[in-house]
């Protein structure tokens, strides 16, 4: 279109006399700019905002933000922190980029296209909330509360999760942090030592640190890594059991390149050897052990020779490691791990780690398993229980007696797809990307496609948001109040102190992003649950939580974001501590009472077992579009043993596809990293790459999505959690 006149000419001659109304009458919006006091250039000083709590990962370091003009310029560790101190990791620093990511969700949107092939239309919050409430209510009325399922993740998902679980009453909630991560660890330790362990080993004061699949340094949690490095600095010996020469293995005194899946056998072999050598902690076991004799008999078959053969580890090394642990007991950190959903035999392996702690008496002592004594008094604020409650499917069916909270993921997916034992027709996804966290992506997609309604709440587009009917933009962790972080100083042997902090916003939320309390309350009102709403706004919730400890948001701000008070000596063993080497309750449910090795499927000829792990600059799949982090590690090279690479004519830098044993080909390619630092029977890549959502400008299609290749399902029989390392791939040059 060309306008054949000048602006001056137009203004001299034009009128809009023929229009139905004057021009000014159709301009209805308030201008985005207005008169303001004159502000000379350079007068906007930096302001330090206190009370930030990171959520680039879930360790949640304490932050301060340098803010200019409601714009976050830089994040740093809070100098007052006795947890992470002034240190934050690369991801923590890159939170600034998440905040201003050009692809971030800005407004509520409705999908006027198809699930999986969306066509978005911006809608008002009222329309979005009305639609969500109407659809969820329709499902509730037709199928009962259990017709709604939820996949939550992160601090902001807790409030809506409790609304749906407690007040509305659906048991069909599945958190990836449990069912695809650490749930097995927690319930296995509960069944062995009576408490979930967290990562509470006193590595800073240990004589030996023992990690099974732990790759500290690649999995960066700041205060945790500080403990680990302090231990090494103090001369601790390091044992890393891992098929791969990880960042931790590179620092280890012993790198045990175990055959994947046989870790439990290794633990049993070492424990049997320690007992046979008479090096176990008899006094500790006499006082605290339950079923030690049965346990001893049960593992007697695990001779060094059998263990060596099963695990493909030299017998001498098994003895050396076992001696190292026993000779330095009890000051030994047996790390409980974090992401432990590996092979579908994981409850037994986690039990064996807890038993090793007991065998060495490595509990309550310097260097051992020690929980810091944190502050008390935080008030719980949650939704009240409603009327419509049914037991979860696994409880009804007598399955998975040691499952973590919620419902095992596959029971929800199967019920949704088959309609049995009952239909599940609405799905709420909050801060989680089930397509990249749950194995067998097609099954997740099938589940979503049969839903009457799917809503997603997130800060970024992800794979799963492509399947939403309504997509809601959430305020990020830098723009809202919520999480209460409390604990002790990171070095348990240091000056005993406790801290309490709460997440405070660094900047106001831009665009139309809203927080979880607003969104949940508005949906609850529209679903007829207004009288059950526990708080009207997030700051009110945080103040209520803090009030139990005599604190408030105002007091925390006055104390630079962190309240510090005297702590208590964490060392010592409670008289009533019991270590269930043999647990008859487990046997009552039909599972082995003593830790037992259950073999996993062997690698088929011509394939490699696919192993995955963490990158130090990415968190799961949440950070793949962050341009700073992407720049640091834009794709996830696939590690392959040098001898195997030679046979396949692969060299470092070659670009490959992966094809799994079920014929699924990776959507994207990645580069090969040829190294002697990995066993011949497996390949390895960092998790969380290669999103299928093209709305991610830099993340989409960068690297290979390992989860897309994990199609063969393994479910841990005691817990219902997934095992995700039983899939096998070939590498094919692209």
């Amino acid at each position, binding site marked *: *279109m060309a306008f*054949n*006149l*000048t*602006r*001056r*000419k*137009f*203004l*001299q*001659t*034009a*009128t*809009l*006399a*023929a*229009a*139905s*109304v*004057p*021009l*000014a009458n*159709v*301009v*209805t*919006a308030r*201008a*985005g*700019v*207005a*008169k*303001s*006091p*004159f*502000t*000379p*250039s350079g007068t906007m000083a930096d302001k330090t905002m206190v009370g930030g709590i990171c959520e680039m990962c879930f360790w949640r370091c304490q932050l301060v933000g340098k803010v200019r*003009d409601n*714009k976050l310029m830089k994040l740093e560790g809070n100098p007052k922190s006795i947890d992470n101190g002034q240190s934050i990791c690369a991801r923590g620093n890159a939170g600034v980029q998440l905040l*201003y*990511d*050009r*692809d971030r969700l*800005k407004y509520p*949107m409705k999908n*006027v296209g198809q699930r999986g092939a*969306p*066509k*978005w*239309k*911006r809608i*008002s919050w009222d329309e979005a909330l009305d639609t969500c409430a109407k659809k969820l209510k329709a499902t509730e009325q037709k199928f009962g509360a259990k017709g709604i399922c939820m996949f939550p993740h992160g601090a902001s998902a807790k409030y809506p999760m409790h609304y749906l679980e407690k007040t509305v009453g659906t048991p069909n909630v599945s958190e990836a942090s449990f069912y695809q991560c650490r749930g097995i660890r927690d319930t296995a330790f509960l069944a062995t030592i009576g408490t979930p362990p967290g990562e509470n080993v006193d590595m800073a004061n240990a004589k030996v640190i023992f990690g099974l699949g732990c790759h500290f340094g690649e999995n960066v949690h700041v205060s945790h890594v500080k403990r680990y490095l302090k231990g090494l600095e103090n001369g601790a010996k390091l044992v890393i059991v891992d098929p791969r020469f990880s960042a931790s293995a590179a620092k280890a005194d012993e790198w045990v390149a175990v055959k994947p899946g046989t870790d439990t056998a290794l633990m049993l072999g070492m424990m049997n050897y320690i007992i046979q050598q008479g090096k176990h902690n008899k006094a500790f076991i006499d006082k605290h052990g339950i079923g030690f004799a049965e346990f001893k008999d049960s593992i007697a078959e695990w001779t060094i020779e059998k263990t060596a053969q099963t695990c493909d580890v030299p017998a001498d090394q098994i003895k050396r490691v076992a001696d190292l642990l026993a000779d330095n007991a009890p000051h030994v950190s047996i790390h409980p791990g974090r992401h432990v959903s590996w092979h579908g035999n994981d409850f037994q392996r986690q039990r064996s780690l807890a038993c090793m702690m007991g065998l060495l008496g490595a509990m309550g002592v310097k260097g051992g398993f020690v929980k810091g004594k944190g502050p008390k008094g935080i008030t719980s604020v949650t939704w009240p229980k409603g009327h419509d409650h049914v037991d979860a499917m696994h409880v009804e069916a007598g399955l998975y007696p040691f499952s973590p909270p919620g419902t095992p993921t596959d029971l929800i997916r199967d019920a949704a797809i088959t309609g049995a034992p009952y239909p599940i027709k609405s799905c709420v996804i909050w801060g989680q990307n089930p397509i990249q966290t749950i194995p067998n992506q097609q099954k997740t997609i099938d589940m979503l496609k049969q839903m009457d309604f799917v809503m997603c709440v997130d800060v970024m587009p992800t794979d799963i948001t*492509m399947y939403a009917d309504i997509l809601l933009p959430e305020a990020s962790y830098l723009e809202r109040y919520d999480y209460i972080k409390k604990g002790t100083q990171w070095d348990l042997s240091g000056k005993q102190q406790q801290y309490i902090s709460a997440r405070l916003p660094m900047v*106001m*939320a*831009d*665009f139309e992003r809203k927080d979880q309390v607003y969104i949940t309350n508005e949906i609850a009102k529209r679903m007829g649950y207004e009288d059950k709403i526990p708080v009207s706004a997030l700051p009110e919730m945080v103040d209520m939580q803090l009030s139990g400890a005599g604190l408030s948001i105002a007091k925390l701000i006055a104390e630079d974001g962190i309240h510090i008070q005297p702590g208590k000596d964490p060392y010592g063993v409670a008289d009533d501590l019991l270590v269930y080497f043999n647990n008859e309750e487990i046997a009552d449910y039909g599972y082995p009472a003593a830790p037992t090795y259950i073999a996993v499927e062997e690698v088929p000829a011509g394939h490699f077992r696919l192993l995955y792990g963490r990158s130090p600059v990415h968190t799961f799949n949440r950070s793949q579009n962050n*341009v700073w982090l992407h720049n640091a590690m834009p794709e996830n090279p696939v590690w392959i043993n040098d001898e195997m690479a030679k046979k396949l004519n692969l060299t470092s830098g070659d670009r490959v596809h992966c094809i799994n044993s079920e014929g699924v080909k990776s959507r994207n390619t990645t580069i090969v990293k040829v190294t002697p630092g990995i066993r011949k029977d497996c390949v390895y890549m960092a998790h969380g790459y290669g999103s299928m959502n*093209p*709305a991610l400008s830099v993340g989409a299609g960068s690297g290979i999505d390992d989860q897309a290749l994990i199609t063969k399902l393994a479910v841990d029989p005691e817990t219902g959690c997934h095992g995700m390392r039983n899939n096998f791939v070939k590498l094919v040059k692209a």
Partner: protein
Amino acid sequence: MSATQEPIRLAEIFRFLAQTMRYPESSWFTDDFLSVFKELLVQLGHVPQKSLPEKITDVTLEEIQVDYTRLFINGVPHVVAPPYASIYIDGTLNSTTADKTREYFRSHGFDITTNEFPDHLVTELDFIALLEDEKQGSSEEFLRLYFRPWFAKFRDLVLAEAEVSYLKTAVEVIDFFTRIETEADSGQAA
């Protein structure tokens, strides 16, 4: 109802142009709005029937909303033309260009009033309207230094990718009113 016979003020035009690029909603995207827009096109020597819908219906409104969302908010595979100067100048959102833009607003006694970024197309058009309100022609420096360097790239993307003609037309009219005119241009065309 008959509209005013008064000559059009440039400030009013910019306010109107800002309105054209807001998210279309039934509260303001009406037949009256369309009537003004069509008459503006006529005065520009253009046949509006080729560029604007005849009437606003739910269907036409939704078509424009969907295309607006795809072009400017959240598109598949990508947002086609993010309406922010920073994206075109610095490659990221809310970057130095946004800071400098706000600084310019402030140095002229203005500031933003919404939680939209200062370098958003609509915010800049609102600002230009306010400058023109104060003194005709006073927006030229802003247009030259801040607006045109990115708008031309934005315009090309919208013209190439927009599916509904309304948005293309709006961008072309904005282009006309923000183009830097030299004395020679004025002389020739006059």
